[in-house]
């Protein structure tokens, strides 16, 4: 049977989603798919485009990879555009002359930016904001510009303004309408948004109709407006709306809307039944949908129809929630109250700059729409009320009134199972409940099972509410007790220890626990005590709490021997020290391996050898590397601006400084850091708990990355920081993690389970929302000030050294140890090898 051949024209977000859905469908094996893109790269996240200016790269924005397509047998052709369709013989022709037959043709050509027909619009430095190439052009132009104007004060215009501001330009926004975001916001909301944006030093000009762009006097250009006013600027960025990219359909006679757009039915078919149109090029019931979520729905519907399903496109909700220039803005449904008889509730707090409006039906029982500026916490609840046409509570104003005491939460129990909770991945309440029933009991598990909240993340709070409520319905008692000896979570224990100033395990156990403790609570509490009092971990009060690795200040290997890892800050080491490492390894016959963290691991040391080895290392200037502890491991670095032709900052000096600052810091799990000297990121900082990447202006700070078992790309936390602010944020970040994480929870998982996610973390650490930053900093100052090299302290104490022999009553080594040679070094013998060895001896 020959395969059905599907051609997808355009590889943007919607075209790519269509292919993903198609590949996930049961008919995937019977399909042959080919996609064309006029852009030089595969699909990327246009919604996050502005992140490009705050440090993200084209790869970060990418939604897919060539590997993904190749694995699934999807053919892709970049830099080639479909220019002709033969509908009767069913084939397309590309600009390069390539002819490809199809059974089904899918047009996902998207849209292009509308540039008003203003004389002078085609000059250099008059640009648009749509593709990564556009961003590159904007970046280039910014290098020779001081002032930039964005034409268009809608959603995209403000995104573009944010980009110009990030590039350091004096930024203006010029809008034709009387207010910003005129489509989504009412007058009150628009007014507050303007005030907030002007506070950020972006000048807003409304009711301006640009007449022409002519040579300027103080700047490159001058814009002349219809009212006679003028504005001087070096760059003009048009972001005045989009137009459907429909020329192909127009030229080859598919039915079009009067003002453009390819007409589609509820199955997303065009006037030719074998040709579909999806996304921003498609016109459904006279409407173009300029958001990505409806495009995704169309992709799903088209896949369903092609593979024999029955899904239909029945319109889309255009509600939206976003952060523009750092200002939270949301709009739901009929934001303007245009429905006949509509009434409003308005909450306007000029002091704290918060504006909220509810639009309700004439009989005050249904929500029609809402506008939120400055505080969008109510968005999730309000959207569900609207989408599910639910009855409003008795006093609807409580939905937007500031919470006094316990806020009246809308129970998620009231939502129908079909309620869509995550719009990015179309995850319903029912799907989340199903995942809980199948054993997902935390946010991390829900995310990986359902994908809910892994797109924009806006639904995280709602997803958690659904999960918690379902857990409760199932009668699952969420028990966070650390173990049978303490009826507290790790976070609660950390609070008790910190607030009551408790210094020993015994004190905590007698006041708050029972029994003797165990291998779960002892190391966890030992770690918390060390994080706050930072005493020598082998003190007699603490030694019994430590894992064997900490007790012997080495990493126990499978045969009971230990490894030795001295600290090599930033991975920088002198030849003299390197020679000492070699000499010690040779003397004690230690298996030697370079680690992933830019230091050297020496394996196979027996207990009695450890103090002698460390004495030699310490005499040569080494310190312990804490490779055995749940604590800071290494700070990896690239060579940076001192040697590298591309480096923009001295990454090695920064790495050495932060490693020296945080060495010895004990934490819920191990901590890894890295510092890269430029955006090429050779130190792989984005896979670390804390990653620092140099920029022209300072440092970008990334947090909560991970390599290893569950890789996670770190999140960009703050940009262009100076040294002092960078250290301040990292201090706060680490101490907040220590205060709130579970035992053995890496920062990546911690963040995924942190209510409010990255935004909340920023509020705590940058805006000091909880008012704890001073405390966090002083806690860190204490740890830094009380650092000691544990090996130095140990070798100076004869009592402690008694423990470092295999037998307390004999000088012999462990007779069970046996080694074999491999590639010039020794490794532990396997069980079989040991038996053979014994036979030979006998």
């Amino acid at each position, binding site marked *: 049977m020959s395969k059905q051949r599907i051609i997808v024209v355009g590889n943007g977000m919607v075209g790519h989603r269509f292919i993903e859905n198609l590949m996930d469908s049961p008919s995937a094996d019977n399909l042959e798919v080919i996609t064309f893109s006029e852009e030089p790269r595969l699909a990327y996240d246009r919604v996050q485009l502005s992140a490009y200016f705050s440090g993200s790269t084209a790869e970060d924005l990418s939604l897919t990879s060539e590997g993904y397509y190749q694995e699934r047998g999807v053919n892709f052709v970049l830099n080639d555009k479909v220019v002709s369709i033969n509908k009767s013989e069913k084939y397309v022709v590309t600009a390069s002359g390539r002819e490809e037959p199809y059974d089904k043709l899918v047009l996902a050509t998207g849209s292009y930016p509308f540039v008003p027909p203003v004389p002078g619009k085609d000059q250099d430095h008059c640009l648009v904001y749509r593709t990564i190439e556009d961003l590159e052009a904007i970046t280039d132009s910014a290098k020779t510009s001081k002032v930039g104007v964005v034409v268009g004060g809608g959603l995209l215009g403000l995104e573009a303004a944010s980009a110009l501001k990030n590039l350091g330009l004096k930024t203006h926004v010029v809008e034709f309408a009387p207010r910003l975001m005129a489509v989504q916001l009412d007058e009150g909301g628009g007014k507050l948004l303007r005030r907030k944006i002007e506070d950020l030093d972006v000048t807003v000009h409304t009711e301006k109709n640009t007449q022409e762009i002519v040579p300027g006097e103080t700047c490159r250009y001058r814009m002349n407006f219809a009212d006679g006013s003028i504005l001087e600027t070096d760059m003009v960025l048009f972001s005045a709306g989009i137009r459907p990219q429909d020329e192909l359909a127009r030229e080859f006679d598919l039915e079009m809307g009067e003002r453009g757009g390819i007409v589609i039915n509820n199955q997303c078919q065009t006037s030719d039944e074998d040709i579909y149109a999806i996304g921003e090029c498609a016109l459904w019931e006279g409407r173009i949908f300029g958001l990505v979520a409806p495009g995704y729905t169309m992709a799903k519907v088209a896949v369903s129809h092609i593979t024999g399903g029955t899904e239909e496109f029945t319109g889309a909700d255009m509600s939206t929630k976003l952060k523009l220039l750092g200002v939270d803005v949301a709009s739901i449904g009929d934001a303007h109250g245009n429905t006949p008889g509509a009434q409003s509730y308005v909450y306007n707090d000029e002091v704290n700059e918060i504006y909220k409006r509810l639009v309700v039906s004439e009989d005050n029982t249904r929500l029609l729409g809402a506008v939120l500026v400055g505080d969008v916490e109510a968005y999730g609840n309000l959207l569900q009320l609207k989408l599910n046409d639910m009855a409003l509570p008795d006093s609807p104003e409580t939905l937007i009134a500031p919470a006094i005491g316990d806020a009246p939460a809308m129970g998620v129990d009231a939502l129908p199972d079909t309620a869509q909770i995550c719009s990015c991945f179309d995850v319903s309440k029912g799907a989340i409940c199903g995942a809980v029933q199948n054993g997902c009991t935390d946010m991390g598990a829900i995310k990986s099972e359902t994908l809910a909240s892994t797109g924009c993340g806006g639904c995280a709070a709602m997803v958690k509410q659904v999960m918690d409520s379902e857990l409760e319905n199932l009668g699952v008692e969420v028990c966070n007790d650390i173990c049978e000896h303490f009826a507290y979570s790790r976070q609660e224990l950390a609070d008790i220890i910190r607030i009551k100033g408790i210094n020993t395990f015994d004190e905590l156990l007698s006041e708050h626990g029972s029994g003797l403790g165990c291998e779960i609570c002892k190391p966890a509490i030992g770690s918390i005590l060390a994080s706050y009092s930072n005493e020598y971990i082998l003190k007699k009060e603490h030694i019994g709490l430590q894992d*064997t690795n900490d007790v012997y200040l080495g990493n126990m290997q499978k045969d009971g021997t230990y490894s030795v890892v001295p600290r090599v800050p930033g991975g920088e080491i002198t030849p003299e020290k390197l020679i000492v490492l070699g000499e010690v390894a040779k003397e004690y016959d230690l298996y030697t391996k370079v680690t992933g963290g830019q230091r050297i691991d020496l394996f196979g040391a027996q207990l009695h050898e450890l103090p002698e080895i460390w004495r030699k290392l310490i005499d040569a200037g080494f310190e312990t590397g804490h490779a055995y502890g749940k604590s800071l491991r290494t700070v990896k670095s690239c060579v940076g601006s001192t040697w590298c032709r591309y480096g923009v900052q001295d990454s090695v000096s920064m790495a050495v400084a932060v490693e020296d600052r945080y060495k010895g810091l004990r934490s819920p799990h191990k901590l890894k850091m890295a510092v890269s000297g430029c955006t090429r990121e050779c130190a792989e900082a984005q896979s670390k708990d804390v990653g620092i990447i140099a920029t022209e202006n300072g440092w970008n700070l990334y947090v909560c990355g991970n390599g290893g078992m569950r890789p996670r790309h770190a999140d960009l936390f703050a940009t262009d920081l100076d040294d002092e602010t960078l250290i301040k944020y990292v201090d706060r970040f680490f101490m907040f993690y220590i205060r709130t994480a579970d035992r053995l929870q890496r920062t990546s998982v911690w963040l995924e389970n942190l209510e409010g996610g990255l935004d909340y973390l920023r509020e705590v650490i940058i805006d000091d929302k909880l008012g704890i930053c001073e405390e966090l900093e002083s806690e860190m100052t204490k740890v830094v000030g009380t650092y000691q090299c544990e090996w130095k302290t140990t070798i100076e104490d004869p009592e402690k050294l008694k423990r470092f022999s295999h037998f307390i009553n004999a000088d012999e080594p462990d007779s069970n140890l046996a080694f074999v040679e491999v590639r010039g070094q020794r490794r532990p013998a396997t069980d079989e090898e040991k038996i053979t060895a014994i036979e030979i001896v006998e």
Partner: protein
Amino acid sequence: MSTTISTEWVSICPDQDLLANTGLCALLDGEQVAIYKINPNPAYSQDLYAISNYDPIGKANVLSRGILGNIGDHLVVASPLYKQHFDLISGECLEDPEQRVKTYEVRRFNDEIQLKKTV
């Protein structure tokens, strides 16, 4: 190393060398013995315990280096290799009762810790 008059009990080390809540390894007639000291606790009649140092699951001589505690009514050490619990009184592995380690008699005598020879 001090010698002892008794033929049955062997002195291992001064009492003070074994810190509360920790273990040590002793050599007794060629056998490796893990000796532990817990905090004095009314729930337990003594504070010293001794079992074989060999972890039959991890197959290494390491049990003296595990963390002490209790799991329900069992007084246990957790193997430092793969964390199975061994009962200090019976020698039984809680996770795998097939695996049982040898137990030894231990006492404090004249401020010394002593193990009883096994026949």
